[in-house]
């Protein structure tokens, strides 16, 4: 039912928990005044980012969204430099110029969160085009939401990617809401995956709260892209546990709906499966312990990082030279 060895499974558990706690602590840190900007927590959707990224290798690239911390962590980004960026400090991934909405990790091929809904989709298509043109075996993955699937960028990008058989995997995280608007009030369909047929592209649906289910379909889609067979639209049905952004109370969502999804918390789902597979609670506790340590260090690192000097605002408008992203 899964081709992943036990150690990998506990790694996935670790990664999901890291995202969960990174976001929970970020919310607290924002409350405490350490983070000046807005936050769109990924809490509840961890299985999607982790399941997809587990199917990727070095040389693959990703584009993300306003809700990008989970994607970035799942790709293996450094929580220290992420908190440093959220804190608006020099050692942040974007040297305090980007913040949550624009974070990148060039070595990991993480082309960035994006402040524009749907904005990352054409960029992923372009990255895939460059990978194809240079004969790389790399694949581009683009994460976006159900709401983004109503943007023109989605349509134009999927048409182009399928036409040119580009190595892209389009991952639609359908969490049933675009901002405060329920899906049935923003589109007349339930399964975004059916839109794949408009582009003669396979469209598949995964239980977005089951990391293994996501991983399985992601592997197929990535393999297909690598083989030069073109893109896939992968829809993951999931849910965000918190508001659209920190501060949003999410009153527009029925309590029963929230409760139902909380009961299917992706971390609980994997956790109980692991326990079922004979992983001891002590081992899970050790993972949780490790996660807290990582985040303690990350927060300390961010706190210790210097603030930028005001004049730095004038730097980085134009480039000296550019050879392209140096993938690790």
């Amino acid at each position, binding site marked *: 039912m899964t081709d992943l060895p036990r150690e990998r499974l506990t790694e996935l558990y670790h990664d999901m928990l890291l995202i969960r706690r990174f976001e929970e602590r970020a919310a607290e840190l924002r409350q405490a005044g350490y983070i000046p900007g807005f936050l769109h927590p990924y809490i509840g959707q961890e299985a999607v980012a982790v399941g997809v990224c587990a199917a990727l290798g070095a040389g693959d690239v990703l584009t993300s969204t306003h809700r990008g911390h989970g994607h970035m962590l799942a790709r293996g980004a450094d929580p220290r430099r992420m908190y440093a960026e959220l804190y*608006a400090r020099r050692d942040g991934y974007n040297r305090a*110029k980007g913040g949550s909405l624009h974070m990148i990790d060039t070595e990991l091929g993480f082309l960035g969160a994006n402040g524009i809904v749907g904005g990352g989709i054409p960029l992923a298509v372009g990255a895939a085009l460059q990978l194809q043109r240079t004969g790389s075996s790399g694949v581009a993955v683009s994460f976006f939401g159900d709401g983004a699937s109503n943007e023109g960028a989605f349509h134009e990008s999927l048409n182009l990617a399928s036409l040119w058989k580009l190595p892209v995997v389009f991952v639609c995280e359908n969490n049933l809401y675009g901002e405060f608007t329920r899906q049935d009030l*923003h589109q007349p369909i339930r399964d975004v995956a059916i839109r794949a047929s408009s582009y003669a592209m396979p469209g598949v649906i995964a239980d977005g709260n089951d990391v293994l289910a996501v991983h399985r379909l992601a592997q197929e889609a990535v393999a297909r892209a690598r083989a030069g067979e073109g893109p896939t639209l992968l829809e993951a049905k999931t849910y965000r546990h918190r508001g659209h952004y920190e501060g949003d109370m999410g009153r527009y969502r029925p309590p029963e709906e929230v409760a139902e999804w909380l009961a299917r918390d992706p971390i609980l789902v994997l956790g109980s499966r692991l326990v079922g597979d004979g992983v001891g609670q002590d081992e899970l506790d050790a993972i949780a312990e490790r996660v807290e340590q990582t985040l303690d260090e990350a927060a300390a690192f961010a706190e210790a990082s210097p603030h930028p000097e005001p004049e730095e605002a004038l730097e980085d408008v134009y480039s000296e030279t550019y050879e392209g992203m140096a993938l690790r």
Partner: protein
Amino acid sequence: MRTISYAAAIREALAEEMERDELVFLLGEDIGQAGGVFGVTQGLYERFGPTRVLDTPISEEALVGAGVGASLLGGRPVVEVMFSDFATLAMDMIVNQAAKTHYMTGGRLSAPLTIRLVTGTAGATSAQHSQSLEAWFVHTPGLKCVAPATPLDAKALMKAAIRDPDPVCFFEHKLLYNTKAAVPEVVEPLPFGQGCVVREGTDITAVSYLNTLHETLAAADELEQEGISLEVFDPRSLVPFDRAGLRASLERTGRLLIAHEAPQRGGFGAEIAAIAASEMWELLRGPIVRVCGTNTPMPYAPELEGFVIPDRARIAAAARSMITAGVA
């Protein structure tokens, strides 16, 4: 007299115009049940119902286009594109369609819609949620552009915008939403093209609008202590622009300072400077000075953002330099 916020003033104008004319309706993302990301449309959905306050999908081109199309048939839509940065996704509908309809059709059709553009930074809102793009629309013949700085002007100009037979770009600054001021119970529409001298002075005419107007006023207070007298002129509508008002002020001062948050290069301040340097040349006693946003995108870190945006200190410093220069 009662005091209300800028956001409440806009809300009242929308409500009163909707009461007055059933052809007026609202379109936008999350403006209905959610009351808008900035709360401007709070309560209007409950009061006027779903046929007057329409929540749209995240489809900027279609939602603005729907407003334009409805306006051709005589509807009076008020379209919110939320952060004006997202207007980049609706430029065809605004610029190629709405702005040119009346002209292209030899005067036979018009597109009387109002487009609400939420402008400027709100603190760490970063590069894609902070832009001040008014200069683009000012440069687009067929559009009218208004940029109120106070609750009263916001209410009076919104009423005029909705009743105007042409497409109007209505710029609202995020940092103004919660600012309060006295607004009478009954407010009449304010005809476009009427600037106002917000503060009288004798040494320098300082032209400013939106949030920067208040920084300019604060600078004027400071400068007064030093014996430098700033006359502060708020054009209120950028297109049409109150040339007579500017001329009258320059007749008193002979010196021109222009301050706005948008990047200096190609900003609306350049047009004001060009008007003065060509049409009011004989009134000028010294170089025109612009105090504007730096020619950079908006950075995330508060220290950097503070450097980019012209504040009272920078405005005051510039004014001082004008006087010393004048003396020398």
